[in-house]
């Protein structure tokens, strides 16, 4: 016996068919419309390069930089009412690079970001997110006049300059004088120049005080190598980058020595294999830190001094190079009024504003002749003077394709071999070198 439901079904079949088709057709139209709307949206036209008007900028989330940023914006706005600058702190995120990349993708990046890591520039540039200084009259010239020949390190493979070198935090070793004295080491002239001396001091600190002599982060994030391996590598090789001309520089000779140096300290238990949960130097859980001049404003309660990073056989300080830890400024293609952005960029990096920046944050503007130009400031602030002296000898990250992936790959190898000792350093570095050389050619992974 057919169920009444089935009979009803037969009746309404035809009408139902048509309605069903109409429904699904509607859905398909909606989906297409959605896709089309997503693919639309043009970017900044070429008129944007000469356009002037209000702009938005992002500062970093460093408290002193924000203060400087706000003051500079205020000064500009007073003289340029028609080209108002609105500034905000960079939105929080896992890494500022991810935040900026998301903004580029969404097409809502600000005109200027005062926190662009040189390592991320290749990625932003590949995404079409940046406007090169070459597009502006006198753009590159301005950069070269301000920074000198070091600006060459910041050009992209296509020959254009997508970032203005802005400031650096030359990486050096800072040490806690009080703790050194307690451990029986000379606080005025500590023996930290050669690897042997450094290890000796480290062992003394550890056995006398029971703390870590130095406690770099054990995190795996791609930029961590900039604060342990890379500065010492640069110093030991006299200024080599991780990769030069497509060839890895770290997997032989000096590069391996540097790796073994760090390995020996982890192996001896001098450095914990866990990242510190707090600021170890501030809490006196470590006697040294590897830091830049930003430290002056942060560690105000401690009595400390600064020396260059160690090298295998000891070099005289004037010959030691280190990592620049630079952050630069770039103009983003989503900007509608790029001429204003360019003018503001020049304004905020003038001699006067660079000075204000130096005074407010202690970080070193990437300016040629820094020491002479602001000599009076450094006379009053001898700690800063040491960093300033080092600032003329800094090396940058290589500007290559897949730069972020390259650093991640290196960090993985470093972590596995140096920090955790799961693999011999030479094997791990060799494997990483092979992968990295592929990466910088521009081949995916």
């Amino acid at each position: 016996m057919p169920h009444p439901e089935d009979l009803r079904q037969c009746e309404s079949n035809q009408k139902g068919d048509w309605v069903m088709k109409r429904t699904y057709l509607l859905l398909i139209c909606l989906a297409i419309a959605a896709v089309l709307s997503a693919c639309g949206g043009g970017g900044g036209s070429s008129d944007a390069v000469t356009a002037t008007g209000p702009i938005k900028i992002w500062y970093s989330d460093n408290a002193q930089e924000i203060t400087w940023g706000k003051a500079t914006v205020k000064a500009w706005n007073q003289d340029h009412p028609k080209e108002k600058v609105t500034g905000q702190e960079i939105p929080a995120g896992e890494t500022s690079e991810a935040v900026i990349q998301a903004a580029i993708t969404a097409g809502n990046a600000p005109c200027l970001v005062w926190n662009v890591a040189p390592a991320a520039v290749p990625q932003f540039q590949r995404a079409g997110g940046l406007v090169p200084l070459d597009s502006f009259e006198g753009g590159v010239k301005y950069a070269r006049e301000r920074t000198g020949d070091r600006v060459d390190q910041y050009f992209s493979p296509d020959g254009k300059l997508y970032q203005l070198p802005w400031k650096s935090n030359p990486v050096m070793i800072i040490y806690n004088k009080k703790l050194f004295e307690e451990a029986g080491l000379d606080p005025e002239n500590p023996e930290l120049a050669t690897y042997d001396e450094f290890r000796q001091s480290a062992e003394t600190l550890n056995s006398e005080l029971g703390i870590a002599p130095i406690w770099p982060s054990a995190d795996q994030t791609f930029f961590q190598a900039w604060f342990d391996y890379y500065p010492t590598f640069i110093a030991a090789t006299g200024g080599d980058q991780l990769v030069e001309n497509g060839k890895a520089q770290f997997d032989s000779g000096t590069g391996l020595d540097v790796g073994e140096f760090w390995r020996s300290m982890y192996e001896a238990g001098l450095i914990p294999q866990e990242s510190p949960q707090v600021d170890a130097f501030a809490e006196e859980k470590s006697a040294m830190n590897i830091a830049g001049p930003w430290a002056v404003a942060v560690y105000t309660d401690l009595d400390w001094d600064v020396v260059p990073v160690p090298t295998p056989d000891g070099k005289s300080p004037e010959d030691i190079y280190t990592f620049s830890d630079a952050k630069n400024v770039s103009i983003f293609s989503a900007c509608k009024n790029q001429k204003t952005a360019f003018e503001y960029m020049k304004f905020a990096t003038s001699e006067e504003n660079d000075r204000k920046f130096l005074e407010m944050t202690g970080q070193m503007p990437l300016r040629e002749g820094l020491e002479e130009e602001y000599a009076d400031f450094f006379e009053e602030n001898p700690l800063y003077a040491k960093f300033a002296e080092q600032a003329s000898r800094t090396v940058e990250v290589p500007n290559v394709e897949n730069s972020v992936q390259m650093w991640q790959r290196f960090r993985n190898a470093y972590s596995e071999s140096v920090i955790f000792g799961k693999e011999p350093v030479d094997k791990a570095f060799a494997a990483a070198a092979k992968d990295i050389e592929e990466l910088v050619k521009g081949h995916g992974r």
Partner: protein
Amino acid sequence: MTTVAKSPATPAGRRRAFGSVAGFLALCFGAFLFVFPFYYMVVGALQAEPDVSISGAFPPPGELSLTNFHTINERVPLLRALFNSVVYTGGVILGTLIIGILAGYALSRLRWRGRSLVLNLVLLTLIIPFQLLMIPMYVLIVRGWGLADSYLGMILPFLVNSTAVFIFRQFFMQLPEDMLDAARIDGASELRILTQIVLPLSKPAILTAALITFIGPWNEFLWPFLVTKKAEMQPLAVALANYISSVAASTANPFGAILAGAVVLAVPAVVLFVIFQRYFVESETSTSLKE
């Protein structure tokens, strides 16, 4: 379930009594283990200095303070973030209730072609990880429709909770067909049947669905983070996640501050659940989820 009565004096009865006592003790111990982290969360949030010793877990009331709440409030405006969470979650619950009830009803009581296909599609939503869809969705919502930094942008991908659709379907399936048929014969439209007959009977299902739907957006920290760049738009889960990963290390008592944020995030959910759990548990036990 009532057990067949046997006096505890007999051997079998004594075994059962012992079993019950042992089971009860085990249950107590288990409950203690389950609840302890929450207790510890509150304790940690109220301690100005972290005290990780065993005695530190049971501090005298005199030592408790609200410093940590102040610390985290300096970087993360707790009330504003809480408000954002409420708007975000409320929007999702509203969308789920409206669209989900319609869908649940259609999937259970109405006949139409393609019904089982859609049912399987719903199952698919549980399998596909959200993170895979996240990036194309980001392009669609932020770039295509310009919904960055808006509540709508946060809400849209979560607008209808598929588990809730399931719950409605299961619940509606249990309604007697004759009741609905009687109404149909009387000439009532499906919409009227739904609103005037079915819904009043569905309070447990609605509450359960609302509670389950609540959990998603309240906890969600990835998507709103992508969509909002302005700190004042971010819901509390996002703000707390960011705080944990970037800022906490620079404060004096990072754990305390984080736990303070955690307490603020957890308390509303816990309170809501405790209040409504009666309906929740009851209706869950009466709608067995079958595939």
